[in-house]
């Protein structure tokens, strides 16, 4: 036995939010430049004053245990 609905069901349209904007190539290039500047400064700050390469750039394995 089939039953008919008392109302017409609303169409199930797939309402999807628009995808977030891609980062454009130009903006990516800008961010990459910032990242590289950050990296240069990071390495500079971790270098010991005697000019030898820093031991701790990679970080200690035992640090920060929670």
């Amino acid at each position, binding site marked *: 036995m089939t039953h008919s609905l008392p109302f017409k069901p609303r169409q199930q349209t797939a309402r999807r939010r628009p*995808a*977030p*904007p*891609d*980062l*454009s190539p*130009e*903006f*990516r290039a*800008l*961010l*990459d*430049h*910032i*990242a*590289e*500047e*950050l*990296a*240069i*400064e*990071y*390495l500079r*700050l*971790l270098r010991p004053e005697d000019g030898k390469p820093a031991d*701790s*750039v*990679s*970080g*200690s*394995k*035992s*640090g*920060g*245990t*929670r």
Partner: protein
Amino acid sequence: MKDIGGWTLAEVSRLLREPQHRLIYLCEKKVVLPDLADARGRGSSRRFSSRNLLEFSIALRMRRLELPVAVVAAMLHTLRHFEDSVRRSDPNFDIVRSLRGPSPLDMRILVKDGERLFFSLGKRGSAPKLFGGMDFPRGVRGIGRNSGDIGAAQPTSKHSKAFGGPEGSRQARIEVSVTEIARSLELKE
């Protein structure tokens, strides 16, 4: 740190105390890209590195502050590229391990007046150096007008005394410590 096998989505959800759907959303919007394995249909599952855990933590905090997904994606893209750049000099570099080390640098992300993105980096207790000043993407491809300095930016002294912050915010600022987020991750080491 447990990076060899990584963490599953369920493990990340428990570690960060966040529902899985929020994490999945960030993956599907390509804000967080699984470092170890991505879901590719039936039977496969995502696996995440400690860097991904840091990325999730940063992204979730930023989303709670109602920052747009595109802006969060830009922040994490920069951090990923930063780590890759340091690895060119030190192949063993790991941003999470470095920031959880005994003498971590102070790395922060700043948002000036809801419009402009900066990064700051310095030794703890010292004045940081400021980088960036990029305007937020406007919701279309090809954004990116940058009215600030590229690379190291000059701290703005004119407004910083009035409101605060080296970036010179006039009315509102967001400052998130990447270092403290990394150090608060509950990783078993």
